[in-house]
Structure formats: structure tokens, C-alpha cells
């Protein structure tokens, strides 16, 4: 089994290719799916390989195109639909919530809706209020939906393959700041189970629960904290619906402290849900109040000036962890490099956004 160093985008592309190869009932569409840029490169080559019946561009009709995907899905097609921004998908909430999410239930199990909806989320570089929303908690609130938020190329591939072949509707959220990240990815078909979290670092002092791009920041923080002897469990959720509580609880039994990171805004977030369940059912495990770091309850502004210190990053995590552990962390934070420009994941990042 070969392992390659490839980007997150290439990993997505590979999952799409594999799914379409092994099952000719997989279809794939979305605005730009067959254009020269191929949705940030993720759909490049698919039309050539699988033909324009199975891979196609669409009218700018998010609502109907979702319903059309649902129709194809209940007729047995594993449908993959992509939106270049989650924000555009707000036009299709009726089809998602009144349709896809409920069909299996309201027809008592007779229909299944194997649709995977890829939604690109992000932040930064002037995306502004309507191109940067991370609405995973909306989807998690709806019974019948599954919500996946990978943080590495390898996870992206394995989770996307599982999503495509899962019989239920899956929202698959790809963070734009992860698209160019590189990681080891296995060749061929492999599946990472939905609903299972991944313990990526092991430590006894505190549990960080994270998702998607925030896991990258958590890892940076963890490396700094290690320097002063603080060992962190980082649990990357992989799926935010359902949430793998047993993984969280197991870690909490050891650490007694939990910090939840969320790429979305605070109120009624995934972080709220995790913390409230811990408080309700497992407060005995906590030797500190739980904590969360999320986006503020604010639409994302566009200006470079306004986004300065707007996005939670590793130094904020370090600071919070030190607070929770009641140790002096300021020196450590001073040591951390200031990331500049602050509105991109790193200076290697080249748009388009």
C-alpha cells in the first residue's frame, strides 16, 4: 500500500475518483464542477474520466439542484453536490431540512437519501460577512443529517469515501484554509468511520476537543505547551454530528479539564452542545469549569484592519490552557511567532478564495 504526500485538495479529488470508479451510480455536480478550475481543483479530471452525464456543471439554482440531487438519490444514485461557499447553500434549506433530512424517517425507512453535500467554509482575506459562515451547528441541530468536518488530507479522503457511500445525507464541510495543506495519504479506497473522533495527541493535563481548521491551530498550541511540560489530549472530532462523546469522556476521565474549539460563532454552537452535555452528564469528571474558544457572535468583517485579532489562533489557545491550568503562560505566548498577514493560513497560501 503506497502512501503519498498530497494536498487536501488532491485527497478530495482522489476520493471522488475512487468512488466514481468503484460505483457507477455515483454522480457529481455543482457550479464549476467541470470548469477549468474544477472547484479549487477538487473535481479536476472527473468529467474526462466519467463523462458529462455523471459529472456536470449546473445552473445557479441551489435550491432546485439540491432537490434534484435528492430525487436522484432516492432512485439509487449516490449524489455528490458541491458549493464553493457554504453561504450559497442557504438557498436550499427547505430541500435539506424538509426533504433530505426527513425522508428516511417520514416514509418509515422506505427511502434512503445517499447524498453528500460538500460545502466549502473559510475565513479571512476579505471574504466578509457572506462568504465565511461556518454553520455546522445548524446542520447538527436537524435530526436525520450527519455532519463531517475533516482536518487532514488523509481524513478528508477516508471520510469523504465513507460519506459518499453512507446511505444518509451527509454535509461534508471543507475548510478553505486546509485545502492546500499537505499530508500523508494512502493510495486506493479506504474508509474512516463517520461519528468517530480521532485522538491525535495524548496528554494528561487537559482535553482539547476540536474540528476542521481549528485542529491545526490546536496542534501548534500543543507543541508550544509541550515546551513547558504541558501535555494535551487533542481530540479531532471528524464528525460533529453525531459527536463521539465516549472518546471525549474517556479523555476527560484522565484530564478533568476540557476546552472546546469551534470554527463557528458561539451561540448554540457545537461547542455549546458538547459543554452542556458534559455539564449535564459528567460534571463529576470536571475539576475546572469547561471552556470554549469560538468565533465571536459577529458577522465576519471584510477589512484587513478589522480582522486583526478577530480569528482565534494558537496563541489564544495557549493562553486559555494556561489560565485553565492556573499557570503563567505569558512568556510562552510572547515566544509564539506573530502570523502575518493575519488573514491567511500562512504566506504560502495563494488564492483564489
Amino acid at each position, binding site marked *: 500500500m503506497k502512501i503519498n504526500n498530497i494536498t487536501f485538495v488532491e485527497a478530495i479529488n482522489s476520493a471522488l475518483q475512487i468512488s466514481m470508479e468503484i460505483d457507477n451510480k455515483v454522480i457529481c455536480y455543482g457550479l464549476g464542477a467541470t470548469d477549468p478550475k474544477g472547484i479549487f481543483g477538487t473535481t479536476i479530471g472527473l468529467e474526462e474520466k466519467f463523462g458529462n452525464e455523471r459529472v456536470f456543471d449546473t445552473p445557479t439554482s441551489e435550491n432546485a439542484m439540491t432537490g434534484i440531487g435528492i430525487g436522484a438519490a432516492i432512485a439509487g444514485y449516490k449524489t455528490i453536490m458541491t458549493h464553493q461557499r457554504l453561504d450559497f447553500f442557504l438557498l436550499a434549506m427547505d430541500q435539506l431540512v424538509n426533504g433530505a433530512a426527513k425522508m428516511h424517517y417520514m416514509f418509515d*425507512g422506505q427511502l434512503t437519501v445517499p447524498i453528500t453535500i460538500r460545502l466549502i467554509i473559510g475565513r479571512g482575506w476579505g471574504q466578509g460577512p457572506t462568504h465565511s459562515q461556518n454553520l455546522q451547528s445548524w446542520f447538527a441541530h436537524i435530526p436525520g443529517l*450527519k455532519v463531517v468536518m475533516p482536518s487532514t488530507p488523509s481524513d478528508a479522503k477516508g471520510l469523504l469515501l465513507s460519506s459518499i457511500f453512507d446511505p444518509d445525507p451527509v454535509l461534508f464541510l471543507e475548510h478553505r484554509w486546509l485545502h492546500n495543506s499537505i499530508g500523508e495519504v494512502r493510495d486506493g479506497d479506504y474508509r474512516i468511520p463517520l461519528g468517530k473522533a480521532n485522538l491525535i495527541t495524548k496528554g494528561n493535563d487537559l482535553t482539547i476537543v476540536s474540528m476542521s481548521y481549528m485542529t491545526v491551530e490546536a496542534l501548534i498550541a500543543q507543541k508550544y505547551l509541550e515546551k513547558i511540560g504541558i501535555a494535551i489530549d487533542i481530540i479531532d472530532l471528524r464528525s460533529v454530528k453525531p459527536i463521539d462523546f465516549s472518546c471525549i469522556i474517556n479523555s476527560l476521565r484522565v484530564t478533568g479539564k476540557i476546552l472546546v474549539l469551534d470554527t463557528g460563532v458561539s451561540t448554540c454552537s457545537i461547542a455549546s452542545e458538547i459543554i452542556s452535555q458534559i455539564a449535564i452528564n459528567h460534571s463529576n469528571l470536571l475539576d475546572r469549569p469547561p471552556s470554549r474558544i469560538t468565533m465571536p457572535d459577529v458577522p465576519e468583517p471584510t477589512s484587513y484592519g478589522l480582522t486583526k485579532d478577530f480569528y482565534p489562533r494558537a496563541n489564544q489557545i495557549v493562553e486559555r490552557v494556561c489560565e485553565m491550568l492556573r499557570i503563567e503562560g505569558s512568556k510562552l505566548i510572547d515566544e509564539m511567532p506573530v502570523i502575518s498577514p493575519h488573514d491567511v493560513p500562512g504566506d504560502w497560501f495563494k488564492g483564489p478564495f
Partner: protein
Amino acid sequence: MKEPKKKSKFLDNQKLKDLFYMMKKIRLVEERIALEYPKNEIRCPTHLSIGQEGVPAALSIVLNNADYAVSTHRGHAHYLSKGGNLNKMIAEIYGKKSGCSGGKGGSMHLIDKDVGFMGTSAIVGNSIPVGVGLGLALKLNKTKNVSCIFLGDGAIEEGSFYESLNFAVLKELPVIFICENNLYSVYSPLSVRQPKNRNIMDLANSIGAHTYYADGNDVINSYTCLDSIISKIKSEDICPWFIEFETYRWREHCGYQFDNDLGYRSVEEYEKWKKRDPITLFENNLKEYFADFDLSQLDQITDKVTSEIDVAFEKAKKDTYPEKTEAFKNIYSNEI
């Protein structure tokens, strides 16, 4: 004895009987529901199709089980016309375990996959793109079948109608939009919803559909039109189609009563349409153009329908409710 008109050549004795059977079945089922409804054993919003039996009856003899259909809140007639199981429908309306959706859906969420009836939605316009997606699947399958989308005149106002039809035309999908224009959306006449000179069929045509307009209360005419269009789709790949059928609902929008007293429509209008009862019109047509049709067959059909309905209601009432624990099942197909 007059010679049957041209249209009659498509209609043999069996087809005539089938048309009558379906109209009568829909009519009597709906009337029985209306009778039972005030007893409060049927406990879900229910929209009857009395007065609108023509179009579904015509469709019932042109589609086969490999064709798909989807429908709306007013879906009983469409479910039955597609061949949906009567017992299961009545049981569903009563919320019973034996219902076609196990009691989870009620009157507004009917399904019978065995006959290609892929579900109804309680959200106006919601099932339209789903029907187009079924058409996309048929096209990919490369079978000669059609996906049939029932919709009302109100659904025309939803963006989803427009987007869906645009896509169906773009991809030339084997889809037929069956618009039953009954002039009202709840208590709202067309005049408060659509422009004065709006012609729904022309609108659909300008989006790109092949179109046709027919009197939905004339079942023979509706049949003739649908039969030729379905064969155009299946044998000539000419599609999609949008057909506007004029028709009228007799009773209130939701529920079992007559509601002309409310004043949102005139008694004259109602009476005018009642005179154009699709079943009476059909019987008159039979007498006028199909003199060799043995009319006594109609009574036999009515008897058959009545006893089918008796059985269905009896069963439904006797059947048990699903266990309350069932409410917590089937949220996911693949529970994690």
C-alpha cells in the same frame, strides 16, 4: 346512435372501465374520509381531491410501475392513480402501523415504492425538484420511463418550480409536470398571486418546456392528451412537458367541509364547476360517443370500489397504532 368521436379510437372497453374505476375510487374514498373526519379519529391535516378526479384517473392508465411520480399535500388521488395500495393509504391517514408510511407521515406523506409513487410533500414546491431528480435518474438509467410531477397553481409561484423546470429543459429530462390549476391556493384566488394576464402554460413554454393545456374535468380528453404526450416522451425523447389542467376543488382547502359560506369564492362559480363534474361528464360522454358501452358495468365498478373502501376503512380502524417506541426509529438509515 352516434359514431364515437375520433378520440374514442384509443379507448377500448377496458380503458373506459379503468377510467371510471379510478375516478369513482378517488371520489368515494375522499367522500368516505369526509364522512369519517369529524369523528376525530383521523388526526392530521387532510386535503381532499373531490372534483379533481379527472386528471389522476387519466394518468392511471398511461403510466406503468416503472414510471415515477411525486406529489403534494393534496396527494390522495395521485397516490391512488399511480396504483398505490388503498388499504395502506387509509391506514396511514388513521396513523396506523400498517400505513404506507408506518404512521410517521400521515395524509400529507404518502408513498408506495412498489408502484413508483415516490412520496408527497407538505411543503409547496418541495417535491418538484425531487421529481426532476427522479427524471435525471431515469435518463441515466437509459430506460424509457417518465417521472411525473403533480403540482398546483400555487406551486407555480415558488422559485423551485422555475429552477426545476429550467434544469429539466436544459437536460431534456423525461419529466412531465402535471399542473392542476384549481384557481385557488388555500383561500387565495389567482388574482392576488399572479399577474392578470398570466397564462401558466405560456410561462412554462417560455422556460422551454413542451406544453399543452387541457380541460382536466374531461377525463377522455385528458387521457388522449396524456397518452400521446407520454408516448412522445417514451418513444421520441421529446421532453420535458408541462401540462396545465383546469379543474376545481369542491370542498375546503384542508378538511372535509364545504366552505362557500366563507365568501372567498362565489356560489355561482362553485355551481358552474359542479355542473362540470368529471364523473358526470364522463357518463354523458359514454352515452353520447360510446353507445356500445354497457352502462351496467358502471354499477358493478361502483360496487367493487365501495367494497374495497369498506374493507380499507374497516381494516384501518381495527389496525393498531405503531408502538410509541417506533417514533425513535428510522431517523437514520445507518445509525452510528
